[in-house]
């Protein structure tokens, strides 16, 4: 019996031993699994930290980029508006709180130095009260602090958490902002002012990217100031020029008036003198005729010859005086053109009748070349006849024997153009401009040999201009002449 008890107890002991070993193994296994899981969780957690840090860094970069893009776009929009104005005040009115906020700042100042006095004053301010501005201006103008702000070379960037050098401390105190950025405004390589932008929040850090943006704005302002100055100079020059032109125009008008007066005086003088000359001339001619007629006794051949010369020269003088009188009358408006519709053919027929003897005498051929079917013109018949007679008689005078004269007629829009062309001696080119001046005679020897008063063409010009036409000449020495004039069509 005891043996069985002992065996039974041994078996129980073995079973207990096996159980506890098994439990121990399970526990060890579970602990190992737990440790493994914990390690895994730790690893995942570490990876999560890496992900978060990476995400944070990416966010920061993206934010900087977004800020820069927004800033650049805002400045671009500002630039478009600025380029359409020459008024610097318009530009300053565009730099307002919304714009400053879009650039990422809460405070802004633009201060410019007066050219003459050197005093720095505020052009725009955002985020400051008026009382603050007065204090800032006083402090800026007081000491040498302005020199740091007006340095051409660069910007001043101060962040709230960064260590400040001495003048940065002073500036932060003056501008009442912990983080700020200043950039000088330069015109023609000289600093004329500065821009300040700042933040009162310590969270927003200023970077060199902000300095770049502000530099762009400073550059826009500089360009606008320069453009505005240039425009002001240009405008002033323009005003000055206008004033001078006005003065000169007034002077010219005055001179013109004087000239007209002189001209009128001349015409009156000529008219008066001509009238005074005609009377004695009439007497001279009259008495010469009486003497030649033998009414006061016989006249010898020699006496008759001299009396005939007196008569001829009196006639010449009379013609000269008549021409002068005609010119004077036309100039003074005392002769009114009696404009009517006349037939070109009929007029030319009449004129050809008059000059036929002179043509035949020199055996000159006369031809009329009509290139238009229009036969009517509007003119004063008697005055136009004088024009033709004058031009044709000149043509005959200056054309040698067996020469050619052609009258060309052509329609030119609302005018009829007449050209008296001859194959005569022509005239030097330098005389063409002066040929219609009163008393002008060419220096050319051949011309000097032909008699004339030098008033005929002047009278012709006056008559044509009174008809609202034009007259001109084309010629060269030895190559004939072409005198052309226009008369209006009906």
């Amino acid at each position, binding site marked *: 019996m005891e043996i069985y008890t002992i065996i039974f107890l041994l078996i129980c002991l073995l079973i207990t031993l096996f159980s506890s070993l098994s439990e121990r193994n399970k526990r060890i296994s579970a602990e190992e699994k737990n440790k493994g899981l914990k390690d895994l*969780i730790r690893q*995942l*957690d570490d990876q*999560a*930290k890496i*992900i*978060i*840090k990476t*995400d*944070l860094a990416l*966010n920061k970069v*993206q934010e900087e980029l*977004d800020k820069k893009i927004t800033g650049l776009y805002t400045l671009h929009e500002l630039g478009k508006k600025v380029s359409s104005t020459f008024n610097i005040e318009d530009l300053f009115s*565009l730099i*307002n*709180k*919304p*714009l400053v*906020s*879009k650039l990422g700042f809460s405070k802004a100042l633009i201060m410019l130095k007066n050219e003459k006095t050197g005093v720095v004053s505020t052009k725009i301010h955002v985020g400051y009260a008026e009382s603050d501005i007065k204090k800032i201006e006083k402090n800026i103008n007081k000491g040498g602090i302005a020199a740091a702000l007006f340095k051409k070379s660069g910007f001043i960037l101060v962040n709230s*958490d960064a260590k400040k050098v001495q003048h940065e401390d002073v500036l932060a105190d003056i501008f009442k902002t912990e983080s700020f950025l200043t950039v000088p405004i330069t015109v023609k390589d000289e600093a004329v002012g500065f821009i300040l932008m700042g933040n009162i*929040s*310590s*969270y*927003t850090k200023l970077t060199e990217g902000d300095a770049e943006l502000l530099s762009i704005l400073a550059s826009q302002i500089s360009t606008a100031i320069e453009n505005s100055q240039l425009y002001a100079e240009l405008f002033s020059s323009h005003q000055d020029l206008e004033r001078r032109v006005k003065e000169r125009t007034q002077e010219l008008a005055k001179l013109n008036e004087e000239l007209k007066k002189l001209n009128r005086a001349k015409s009156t003088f000529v008219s008066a003198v001509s009238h005074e000359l005609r009377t004695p001339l009439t007497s001279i001619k009259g008495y010469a005729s009486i003497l030649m007629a033998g009414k006061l006794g016989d006249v010898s051949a020699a006496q008759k010859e001299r009396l005939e010369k007196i008569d001829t020269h009196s006639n010449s003088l009379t013609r000269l005086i008549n021409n002068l009188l005609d010119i004077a009358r036309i100039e003074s408006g005392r002769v009114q053109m009696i404009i009517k519709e006349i037939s070109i053919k009929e007029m030319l027929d009449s004129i050809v009748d008059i000059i036929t003897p002179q043509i035949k005498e020199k055996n000159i051929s006369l031809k009329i070349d009509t290139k238009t079917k229009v036969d009517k013109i509007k003119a004063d018949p008697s005055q136009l006849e004088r024009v033709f007679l004058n031009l044709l008689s000149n043509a005959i005078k200056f054309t040698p024997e067996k020469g050619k004269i052609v009258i060309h007629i052509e329609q030119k829009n609302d005018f009829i153009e007449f050209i008296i062309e001859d194959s005569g001696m022509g005239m030097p080119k330098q005389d063409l401009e002066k040929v219609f001046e009163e008393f002008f005679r060419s220096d050319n020897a051949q011309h000097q040999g032909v008699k004339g008063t030098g008033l005929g063409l002047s009278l012709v010009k006056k008559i044509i201009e009174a008809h609202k036409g034009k007259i001109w000449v084309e010629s060269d020495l030895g190559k004939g002449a072409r005198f052309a004039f226009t008369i209006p069509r009906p």
Partner: protein
Amino acid sequence: MIYVKHDRKTLTHCMLLCNIANKAMATKIGIGYSQNLDSFSAGKEAARLATYQLGRLKTDLIIAFISPIFEQDIALKGIRSIANEAPMIGSSSIASITSKGSFKDSVTICAISFDSINFSIAFQEGVRNNPRSVSTSVARKALSNSTIQRQLYMMLSDSFGVNSSDVLIGAHEILGTRFPVIGGASAHNFQYKKTCQYFNYHLYEDLVIGLLLSGNFTTGIGSAHGWQRIGRSHDLTKAKLNIIKEIDRRPAIALYEDYLGKDINELKNEGIAKIGASFPLGMKLREKEAYLLRSPVDITEDGGLVLNANVPECEEINLMIGDRDSALNAAKKAAREALENLKNLTPSFGMVYSDISRFQLFRKDPQIELNAIKDIIGENVPLIGCYTCGVYAPISVAEYTQQFYFQNQTLSVTLFSE
């Protein structure tokens, strides 16, 4: 059609007749915006565009969202110059959300001509010091001026130093704990500065505005965030109200120090609000399969994290991370939920409030979030809303309990059907 001129402050039988008669009509919304950098002109242009779209309809209410880049009082003057007579509420916001687009750096005006919806508005200052009692007071005023069939309450409140959970609790004390509350706290950027609210063209800070909508209409609300857990779970070991003092028996800031590799001073310098917007804390609510997100806005002297709302009771706490794809999917989910909760009725219009961290996540191109919503609800549903510092919205769970929370990183979509 029976046309009856009715007084919105008192109930009349005419109201019912009006609702029946005008069943075919719906609330009309005119939306105008301007990005003119002159504040007055921006306000004026936006208001003109919005009111013009209403045609001959009377403008019952103006809701304005003005970017903080503008001079707020001057922009309000611009708005007033056009829409002087209509009641007006609004808030500063970095960007608006409307069916016409999402506009940053803008003045956006929504001019509303209600049809079967009645509204009452109220406001009170002092929310920073007494968020709960001020919110209670506003809700009470709005309630007293409202008609029967109260359906929805929208709040816009200051966020600077404000416990927005208490603002919600205050409203629920008057309206009922299950009463739908939407809206959010004003936000304008990540610097966590003072924000602005507007009431009848006057500029305020430290304000709660309440808009109570009542009438015969149906609403459907959906919300989602799309942020996901990253790293291991942690224990919330010490917290009080809106301050987390300890996590895993260490100062709460240590969590961020560990994961971001920055010390407390660096985190202070960079701004914990901005970092917290991207990496909020997710609190797994007891007995729910959902994480309530909270963004830290400040750090206490002893390394605690100050949140903009109360710390809920939670099983565990995690750092959360967002990505564009999951956030966009969340936007679609919220829109889908809102449609489902509208019981498949056709939406007349909608309100969208989205947390500012989502604006940051989409790289400041919020149009893609708006497009995701429109993909679900349709192109032609008028939408109004803005980016806020947290939204009032229900937690989206399998069993939809209609329990509303103040949440960060979240988008809420509310659809209306008349």
